[in-house]
């Protein structure tokens, strides 16, 4: 073990310690726990939890199904609205979605554990790889889906269910999008993302072509020639740059690359991590990078965010989680320079204040943080959008049904303007675009 090894090094912790650190964040409920947890639901009328769910899962109903001893029926209720219900049960920030809206959160600060109950139900059905839906008779229509993240998968599934044939074009080697490459390892353990894709395409009628990128291997015009409609669910392939001196030093990299490396590692002891890690940013990605650096054995992991804590994208719950794992969070400071010989050694930050108009100003006062590794988590950006598609605030412009400015082209997920960048939002948008495509193809739209 090399806990104190300077620089960036693998094996800071033993295999056992790593296994414990990266085990399930929220272990699954057993039958009795689920029964008790389900018994707490009030079966609210016009339930606020359902309204708070971007996919509008009928939450009180699925909880009642668990309560009456029918977890698989509960799973079907969940999947009917949200086919990524298994992943969402693990990764949704429920504290800002359904559980925040739960009347028992309001009443006693202890919401019904909707996320864990959802996991309980979906695990049951997926555990025996049972696909709950049957496909409608083939329609002969063909749809291309670009990207196999939650948006693309949800769209493909809905279309396949309606009897259309779908081909998914995926640039990377594995399907799943950020479910496979982005979500923190302790949220989705044991190859769940791949298992979920396998389960989802069990509907039939979906072909996934990995290693095939739009723009590189195929063009939008090709797709429009070969298919009746196209859905773009390409996420945000680029990362924002800091734009400060020293950014190209070794040891500085996008947080998402580090996170992907952890997710793809066969063996966590092989993933190198710095002794002093600095993460710049304030969202979920920053938290995930810093926490996972700590879990890999970094001595210090510090998140530095340029505005006040209330402006951070990461919820209070996630910030507490990070603090509990020993991550320090510094707010109101921005990086101005990265120092080092061949590689990064320290980062210079300047304190900031936010003017009442919301403008950020440096105070002139600076401080230095020693760093072997710096992760940039200041947002991803849209890349590789084909020409002729209108962009709005850096994202693809769509109407309420997910239509882009181009005929026969729909889009959804992180790459479009509306909605938060969350798995569940991407799922909802993919599903709704599929409904719109379906109406278009069957002449009802």
């Amino acid at each position, binding site marked *: 073990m090399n806990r104190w090894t300077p620089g960036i090094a693998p094996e800071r912790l033993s295999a056992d310690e790593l296994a414990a650190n990266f085990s399930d964040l929220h272990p699954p409920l057993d039958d*009795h726990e689920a029964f008790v947890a389900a018994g*707490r639901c009030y*079966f609210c*009328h016009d339930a606020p939890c359902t309204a708070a769910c971007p996919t509008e899962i009928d939450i009180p109903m699925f909880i*009642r*199904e668990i*309560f009456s001893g*029918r977890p698989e*029926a509960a799973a079907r209720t969940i999947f009917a609205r949200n086919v990524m219900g298994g992943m969402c049960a693990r990764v949704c920030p429920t504290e800002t979605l359904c559980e925040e809206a739960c009347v028992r959160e309001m009443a006693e600060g202890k919401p019904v554990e909707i996320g864990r109950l959802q996991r309980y139900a979906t695990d049951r059905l997926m555990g025996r790889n049972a696909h709950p839906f049957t496909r409608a008779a083939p329609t002969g229509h063909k749809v291309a889906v670009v990207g196999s993240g939650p948006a693309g998968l949800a769209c493909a599934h809905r279309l396949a269910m309606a009897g259309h044939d779908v081909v998914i074009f995926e640039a990377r080697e594995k399907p799943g999008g950020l479910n496979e490459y982005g979500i923190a390892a302790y949220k989705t353990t044991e190859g769940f993302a791949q298992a979920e894709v396998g389960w989802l395409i069990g509907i039939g009628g979906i072909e996934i072509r990995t290693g095939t990128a739009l723009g590189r291997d195929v063009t939008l015009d090709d797709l429009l020639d070969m298919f009746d409609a196209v859905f773009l669910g390409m996420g945000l392939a680029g990362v924002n740059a800091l734009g400060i001196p020293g950014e190209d030093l070794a040891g500085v990299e996008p947080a998402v690359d580090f996170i992907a490396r952890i997710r793809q590692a066969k063996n966590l002891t092989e993933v190198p991590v710095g002794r002093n890690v600095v993460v710049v940013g304030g969202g979920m990605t920053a938290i995930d990078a810093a926490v996972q650096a700590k879990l890999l054995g970094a001595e210090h992991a510090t998140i530095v965010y340029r505005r006040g804590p209330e402006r951070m994208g990461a919820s209070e719950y996630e910030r507490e989680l990070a603090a509990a794992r020993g991550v320090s969070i510094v707010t109101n400071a921005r990086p101005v320079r990265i120092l080092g010989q061949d590689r990064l050694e320290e980062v210079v930050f300047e304190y900031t204040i936010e003017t009442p108009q919301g403008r950020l100003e440096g105070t002139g006062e600076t401080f230095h943080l020693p760093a072997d590794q710096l992760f940039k988590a200041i947002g991803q950006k849209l890349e590789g959008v084909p020409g002729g598609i209108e962009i709005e605030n850096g994202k693809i412009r769509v109407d309420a049904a997910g239509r882009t400015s181009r005929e026969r082209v729909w889009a959804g997920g992180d790459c479009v303007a509306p909605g938060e960048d969350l798995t569940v939002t991407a799922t909802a948008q993919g599903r709704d675009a599929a409904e719109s495509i379906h109406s278009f193809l069957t002449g009802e739209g």
Partner: protein
Amino acid sequence: MADLRCNFVGIKSPNPFWLASAPPTDKEYNVRRAFEAGWGGVVWKTLGEDPPIVNVNGPRYGAVHGPDRWLMGLNNIELISDRPLEVNLREIKAVKRDWPDRALVVSLMVPCEEQAWKRILPLVEETGADGIELNFGCPHGMSERGMGSAVGQVPEYVEMVARWCKQNTRMPVIVKLTPNITDIRHPARAAFRGGADAVSLINTINSITGVDLDSFAPEPTIDGKGTHGGYCGPAVKPIALNMVAEIARDEETRGKPISGIGGITTWRDAAEFMALGASSVQVCTAAMTYGFRIVEEMIAGLSDWMDEKGHATLDDIIGKAVPNVTDWQFLNLNHVTKAVIDQDLCIKCGRCYAACEDTSHQAIAMSEDRVFTVKDEECVACNLCVNVCPVEGCITMRTMVPGEVDPRTGAVVSGEYANWTTHPNNPGAGCGTG
């Protein structure tokens, strides 16, 4: 998909889930929404003669809550419909016209005189309703006026009124029984003797849900006073199940149609009533607690369970448990079991020990390091430890196989069936009464 279609004395509904006669069925607005939500049928809130009765203007309900304010039992002092007869009849007609595939039964309660029934029956018939239910059950208010349970408690009256109704209408007649009686079989037999097509049960049970210890008044309290009301909800289910079973297995009434009522909250409760002989079920408190949507879960749950078990139609489950309900004297006294504690599941709370040591048979041993084990030589297999253990499946009953020696009695366990009627301790056994 299992076929949930229900045919109850000729009254058809797409599923066996009916709303019981009570506030959920008190008016057109409710019943239409219930049908939209999927309920297979309703029994309209009980109609009486004009002028309509009046209800109290203070609280009508009291409740018994479980932990976490679970509504275990509800008690009410509401009377029958307090709206004019003509309004109810007009609404019934309109709803039935728009929902021909749903069961619409009208509950009635008029004075115990043939003329009164003769007056109201044609009016109901004219609405196109599918049948009538005679409310012989209300335990409060109406009974003091010689109606409701005052009739239901006298089998001769039950028979008489049932006969009047059969003679004066072509509609199927269901008699709703009161549980406030010593032996439910007597009014049930009387109903069928009078020609009734079916019985439904249970109505509510006389109860006081609590006493306010500051004002020393029973709850619900109206201006310092309270009265007994009718108890219903999950708490009454075991009582209702037994009464249904008693009628289902009685020589005289065996196989007669029963609509099961009392505490039905999930599909499982409904399936249990049906297994004990009910061919439709009625729900009141669960709908009043959670709203109409619970029927979705009831329908899907019943259907899934039937599919899973290979039951195609309701007839495949109705009455399936009746042959297994027997009298105590016929239980097999040679069936010997012993409690077994699963040490891996045990959380060492010691509740089994306290229960057995203090109140039962001193059959559980406790070691210094809190390991609890059953003393087979003391265990009479009463099941108390199983029931008080907080961990499901931790304590179970193991059936001893024939040939084993029961360490408590020293006797070899026999594979033969033997019951009380032939037991040597039974003074009557030798006389050939077995």
